[in-house]
């Protein structure tokens, strides 16, 4: 069992409110990822769940039991630190065995457990080495091994891969996902890395300035961000935002005008709409060359050719109104030459003055698997 419930969790440092009443439920076996800009309180929240930092107010409940005043070990959690926190003077074996030694497990049982963990993590050959002799990825695995042997109900990870290089990070990501499936434990994971969040999470919690901006499955956040913050935060390159004016509402959605170009966005209208200044959001990967529902002619100032894609940056004239398009790798465009770009209305997001999204009226196959016809695949 590894159920976690946070209710009205607050954290103050002096008079500075770092977390402003967090409400969250995590199911047993779920893989939850916390993302958010630097300083938004991710680590703090994780450390409060772990019992390393004190909770100023609110309840942290694990498996129905309030644990606010319990030390970490009694909470049934294990934590993997960003810096690995390996003990440099102990062998890999001893590092992994550490929690078991603490609880004075008999030697033979301990050995079996450590070796089992080592096998899962492909560390069998390294057990006698010191952490100093290991590569970054191996060290990371030792840290995970130390967490595994305790068989905790909940694993906590604070940016565990951020010290690794890109290739290693990709490998470890996949290994962690496998591990999650293997152990079926609840995992809570803090990261800066979008790809990690998108690929590993069952559910992503987006934090902004000490508050939860949105909670949801990765693609839910991608396709249906609840507000401008989440829309801008999830997805890379960042979503383009255009100031538009609502000209009317009809069955197909909301009609908006951007500098004389109009489009009908298939979203659910809310209240009186006409005349209001809204924000239209469109992801760079949904901008195409050639005309579409909303067609804009732009002059890209920078073209980044990455091989697989070409990313074009243009200014739409207005201050800060930058416009970015992610186009196919072999697209024939050049910097400082005009291009016709089109956006499909169905790909657009619409936000009101407060940044709250209007619900989109589109079906997304990647979001709702039931839409797939398995036979097709």
């Amino acid at each position: 069992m590894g159920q976690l419930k946070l209710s009205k969790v607050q954290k103050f440092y002096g008079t500075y409110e770092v977390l402003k009443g967090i409400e969250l439920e995590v199911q047993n076996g779920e893989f939850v990822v916390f993302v958010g800009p630097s300083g938004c309180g991710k680590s703090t929240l994780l450390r409060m769940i772990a019992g390393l930092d004190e909770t100023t107010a609110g309840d942290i409940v694990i498996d129905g039991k309030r644990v606010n005043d319990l030390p970490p070990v009694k909470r049934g959690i294990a934590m993997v630190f960003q810096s690995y926190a390996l003990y440099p003077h102990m062998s890999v074996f001893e590092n992994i065995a550490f929690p078991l030694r603490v609880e004075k497990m008999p030697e033979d049982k301990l050995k079996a457990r450590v070796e089992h963990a080592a096998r899962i993590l492909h560390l069998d050959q390294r057990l006698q080495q010191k952490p100093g002799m290991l590569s970054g990825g191996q060290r990371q695995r030792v840290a995970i091994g130390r967490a595994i042997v305790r068989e905790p109900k909940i694993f906590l990870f604070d940016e565990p891969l951020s010290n690794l290089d890109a290739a290693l990070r990709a490998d470890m990501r996949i290994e962690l996902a496998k591990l999650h499936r293997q152990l079926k434990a609840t995992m809570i994971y803090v990261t800066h890395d979008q790809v990690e969040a998108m690929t590993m999470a069952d559910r992503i919690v987006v934090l902004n300035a000490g508050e939860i901006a949105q909670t949801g499955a990765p693609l839910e956040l991608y396709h249906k961000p609840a507000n401008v913050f989440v829309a801008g935060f999830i997805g890379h390159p960042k979503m383009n935002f255009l100031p538009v004016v609502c000209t009317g509402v009809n069955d197909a959605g909301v009609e908006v005008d951007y500098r004389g170009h109009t489009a009908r966005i298939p979203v659910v209208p809310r209240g009186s709409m006409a005349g209001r200044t809204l924000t239209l959001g469109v992801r760079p990967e949904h901008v195409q060359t050639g005309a579409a529902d909303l067609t804009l002619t732009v002059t890209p100032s920078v073209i980044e050719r990455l091989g697989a894609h070409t990313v074009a940056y243009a200014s739409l004239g207005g201050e800060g109104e930058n416009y970015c398009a992610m186009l196919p790798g072999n697209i024939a465009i050049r910097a400082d030459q005009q291009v016709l770009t089109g956006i499909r209305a169905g790909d657009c997001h619409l936000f009101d003055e407060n940044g709250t999204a209007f619900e989109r009226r589109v079906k997304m196959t990647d979001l709702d698997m039931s839409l797939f016809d398995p036979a097709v695949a």
Partner: protein
Amino acid sequence: MSQPAMINRYRWYELVGIYAGIFVFLAFILAPFVEGFSVSLKPLGLLFSSPYRFWPENGSFEAYRTMWVSVPGFARYIFNSFFISTIVTAVVLVLVVPSAYAFARFQFRGSGALLAAFLAVNMFSGAVLLIPLFRLMRSMGVLNTYFAMIVPGVAFLIPSAIWLLRTYMMRIPRELDEAAFVDGASHFYTLRRVILPIAMPGITVVAITTFIGSYAQQFIFALTFNSKTEYMPLPIGLYAYFGRQEVIWNELMAASFVGIAPAVILIFLMQRYLVAGLTAGAVKQ
């Protein structure tokens, strides 16, 4: 041999300047030892003669032989110094390691003030406290034992040891403690199994400095609190060369050189460690 980094490549005049600087500096540091050495080579009768001659005429190492004769217990004094310093160092470490850890890791009300209070102990040279200390030693019944020198010696070496070790321990990542804490290790277990082994280089530096502090500098306590010849440490032993009528200067100097030799050797072997350990302390202050 590998070449020095380009930035450390010196031109000839820079080299000359550096070596000249080092020479001047070391000349200042070592001049008294040169003087002392030259004294140790001169026969007592020729010590007081002018004009000054840098090289002793008909100098000899005679004093290095006679010193063992005129103060028969000298070897014992060196042993005592070693013994006392070893015990002092051990006691200091036992007391200081937990305290330094507490100061490095835990913030609690009064921790800053307490640390300052420890530092303040450095301000009292034992000389000022001699009489009350004597009474204390007597009521503890440790006069005229090794403890008479060990007990007060420890007290005045604690503060700087705490100071040094604390700065070292502050450099050990806090995550190591936290990881152990999360795994259910008690504070004590963490200290013993995690912090102690990692802090070993720092502890070594503290041990060396404490040892030397105790080896060379504990004079007044030994003098006042101990009367037994067989327990006397080196500095007191050296005082034995102050004869009844006249100081046997050449033997005194010879004995000084012999007496500090063990400590010099220790320093020589440990110097790499010493500078590195101090660096650790210096990074965070």
